[in-house]
Every structure is written in structure tokens, then in C-alpha cells.
């Protein structure tokens, strides 16, 4: 055994106050859902199928000769629970995403995800705003904008109908690498240029995302250019991502396949599709809205911390 000559840092990366803040927030969340009649549930961390989203990489685990995937969100098993018995449910737990590390990213982080049968994404967005507002005594200013208005106000760019070349050029002018496609350029502009300018006491609700960024939300029946998805930013941090959930099993299977094709084209790992989710959707998912919230960023915002390591007892480097 080498002797610890004080070169090995064993201490937590979070101060004691951050531990208390986390415990208080968990209690607040559980009290809120208990009062609302939303049931806390638990689903597996290790799954036999991976998330197909090309923007998210799973961490794999050797489960004794075969491979399992650490979940990147509890979305699929929670939807299977809803298909079995449709009632409001939530899960508060750890999720994992390979290589996501930075001042507001840790490959292992805590996610709160919940579902409201019978609601649409706008009703759920209101609840997220209510829940987040209730966690602080600060007075907040809530901004509600469509994706298109947000880009128009901030940069004078038409994010939905603008020409790809113009959008890519606008991103490159503001420091983006060359060779981006339209959606990547929009991603860059939102996360590197627009969001950093949001005020700290501002909650920004963005709705009307481009249909190409629908992920697992429905396409708007009245406007096929956009989907029924929202995001909530607290200050400049992306906190919540919610959908009026896709319930059509055939459309779900198509999106899985399209993800797989994108992964193949990019040379990314292509893993088994979650056939159990498709089977559950075939059995029937009641119309519902669902949202995922990043607990660690919520804590950063509440405590005024600027690095995620300050709210994690042991961050990725010291875990």
C-alpha cells in the first residue's frame, strides 16, 4: 500500500452546503409529487437495448460475457409502465452518457423524469415552471418564446424557413467549426451563442422546435414544420426537455430506424433496437406528456455554482 503523502486528493468536490441543498431539493420534489398524486417508481439502470439517439452515447457494462447498456434516461421503461397502467409517474435517479464532460456536464448525473397521462406538452411545461419557481425564493421572470421567435429576436435568423447556407454562415461567423449541417448549426447557435446571454433570474421556455429535432415528440398536427416539444432554461442552463409523447408504434419504429441509419453513416456504434418499447406501444400508450429535468444543473442554479463538480460529492475526475 502506498502511503498517502497528501498528494492523493480524497476529499469531495462539493462543499457541505451543496450536500444539504441536494437533500432539501429531493425532499421538495418528493413532497410536491406526493401532494400531486404522482407515483414514484424505479426502473433498471442496466438495459439490454441502448438509446438510439445519434447525439447520445451509452456507456456499456460487461455483464459476465454479454453487454448491457447503462441507461441514458429512464424514458423507455417508464413508457412501458404507462402502457401497462396509465397513471402519473416519476423517477428520480442516475443516468449515464459517455464522453459528456464539461462545466455543466458529468457522464454520470441525476435526472428527474415524469409523465402526465392526458396532458399535452404545454400543460406540462407550466407544471415544470411551477415546480422550478417553487424551489427558490428568488423572484423570477418567465419568458415564453417559440424556437423561431427566439432565433429571430436574438440573431435575426429564420430558424424554420431560412436557407441552410444562411444559417450555417451565421453560425460560422460566430465561431462555429466548418462543415455543419443546418440542425448542427442551429444547435451551435442556441447552445453557444443565444443561451449564454439569458439572465440568471430568467426562466426561458422554448416551444415549437423544428420537426427535424422532434426526437420522441409528436409533429404538430397544425404545422408540420414544428414538433410538440419544449425546453426550459434556468439562466443560461438547459434544464428540462419535454414532449407531447409520440404514441404511434409504427412512427416510433421509423424514427428508431432513421437513428440507426444516421449512426451507421457517422460510423457510430449501432446497437439493438428496443423492441420491448415498440411492443408496448403496440399494446397502447395513452396520450401523455413527459419531461426530463437535470437535477445537478438545477442545484447549480439554486446554489450559484458555476461548475457541476461543485454540486457532486465526487465528480467524474474524483469518482
Amino acid at each position, binding site marked *: 500500500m502506498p502511503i498517502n503523502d497528501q498528494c492523493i486528493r480524497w476529499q469531495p468536490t462539493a462543499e457541505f452546503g451543496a450536500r444539504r441543498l441536494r437533500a432539501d431539493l429531493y425532499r421538495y420534489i418528493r413532497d410536491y409529487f406526493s401532494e400531486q398524486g404522482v407515483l414514484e417508481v424505479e426502473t433498471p439502470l442496466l438495459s439490454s437495448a441502448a438509446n438510439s*439517439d445519434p*447525439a*447520445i452515447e451509452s456507456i456499456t457494462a460487461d455483464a459476465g460475457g454479454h453487454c448491457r447498456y447503462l441507461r441514458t434516461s429512464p424514458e423507455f421503461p417508464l413508457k412501458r409502465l404507462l402502457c401497462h397502467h396509465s397513471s402519473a409517474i416519476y423517477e428520480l435517479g442516475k443516468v449515464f452518457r459517455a*464522453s*459528456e*464532460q*464539461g*462545466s455543466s*456536464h458529468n457522464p454520470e448525473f441525476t435526472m428527474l423524469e415524469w409523465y402526465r397521462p392526458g396532458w399535452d406538452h404545454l400543460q406540462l411545461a407550466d407544471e415544470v415552471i411551477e415546480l422550478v419557481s417553487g424551489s427558490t425564493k428568488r423572484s423570477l421572470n418567465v419568458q415564453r418564446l417559440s424556437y423561431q421567435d427566439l432565433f429571430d429576436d436574438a440573431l435575426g435568423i429564420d430558424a424554420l424557413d431560412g436557407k441552410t447556407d444562411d444559417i450555417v454562415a451565421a453560425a460560422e461567423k460566430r*465561431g*462555429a*467549426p466548418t*462543415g*455543419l449541417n443546418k*440542425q*448542427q448549426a*442551429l*444547435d*451551435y447557435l*442556441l*447552445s*453557444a451563442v443565444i443561451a449564454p446571454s439569458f439572465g440568471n433570474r430568467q426562466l426561458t421556455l422554448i416551444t415549437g422546435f423544428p420537426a427535424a*429535432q422532434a*426526437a420522441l415528440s409528436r409533429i404538430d398536427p397544425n404545422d408540420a414544420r414544428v414538433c410538440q416539444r419544449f*425546453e426550459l432554461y434556468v439562466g443560461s442552463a*438547459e434544464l428540462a*426537455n419535454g414532449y407531447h409523447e409520440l404514441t404511434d408504434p409504427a412512427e416510433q419504429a421509423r424514427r428508431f430506424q432513421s437513428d440507426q441509419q444516421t449512426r451507421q453513416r457517422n460510423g457510430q456504434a449501432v446497437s439493438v433496437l428496443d423492441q420491448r418499447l415498440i411492443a408496448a406501444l403496440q399494446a397502447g400508450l395513452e396520450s401523455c406528456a413527459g419531461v*426530463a429535468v*437535470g437535477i445537478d444543473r438545477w442545484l447549480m442554479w439554486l446554489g450559484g455554482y458555476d461548475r457541476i463538480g461543485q454540486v457532486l460529492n465526487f465528480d467524474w475526475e474524483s469518482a
Partner: protein
Amino acid sequence: MATYSTNEFRSGLKILLDGDPYNIVENEFVKPGKGQAFNRARVRNLKTGRTVEKTWKSGETVEAADIFEKPLQYLYSDGEFWYFMEPETFEQLGADEAAMGESLQWIKEEDVCMVTLWNGQPLVVEAPNFVELQITDTDPGVRGDTSGGGGKPATLETGAVVRVPLFVNQGEVIKVDTRTGEYVSRVKE
């Protein structure tokens, strides 16, 4: 050719951009939950010292710069190059004026400097943080003045000029902070 993925980016990593060596000062990971991830880094050009911001798609690779730092002993100058010796192999390396930068006004023979080598050649020579140098020329001090009110210029044996307190005399050895170019104290022989 060695390369780094953006996933390996961290401060201090040395990379090659448009043929120039850069040091990563700060790296930030930017990613929307459902979208393209980017690495946005502040990088310093090791040749010019200039810092710029640059963004990559996460997962892209960047060429590594063959950069490392070594303490080398200064031997002499022929006016065009300043020659340093690797103390173990006795190998000699010449640094040009650009690599010497401000350091050339502080060092004298046998001083050990931290030298940044790029592809084995001196790129940046850093003088020691503190050097002790003799004053070769300064006006006589004023009797009774013990603190350095305004001070006066003094020329050192290397040619550098620093402001010293009035009580410091020609022929004395003083300690200088090379990072600020400021007088620190007299050195008792």
C-alpha cells in the same frame, strides 16, 4: 502522427493548428441535450503568445504538437543565437531572438532556464522567476533616504534597466522578479 480526440482535451494539452503549436488554456464542452456536441477551447499560440477561441465538433481529432518543457543551462550567445545545454547529454541547442523574447535581458551564463521545445527545437525560453544581477550603473544614492519613494533607474550587468530605491548603489547585487521586471531586494554577499 499523434492525434488527440476532443474528448481528451484538457488545459495544458499541446496541439497543432494551421501548422502552429498551441496550448489549450481552457476547454468547455457545449451540448444541447438532443443535438450536436461541441468543444469550445481557448488556445494560446505558443509562437506568438496570442490567445484565440476555437470550436470543434466533439469527437473530431486534432494533431498533437510535439512540445515539451526542459530545464536547460544557458551557455553563451553569438549575437544571433543563444546556446543552451542539456545537462545530461551535453547536447547544445540554439534559441533565436523570437524564442528568447524578454528573457534575454535577464539571463547570464550558467543560469538554468525552462525551455519549451517544439520538434526538439527551442520555441520559448523562460528566465527564472527571480534572478540576482549586479548593478553596473546608477546615480549615487541620497544620504538619509531609506525607503524607495520615487526610486531611480539602474542598469544591470545584462543590460536590463530596472527602477531601484535611492539607497541602492552601483556595484551592489539585487534580486529582480523577471515576470514584472521589478526590484525585489538587495542581496547581501
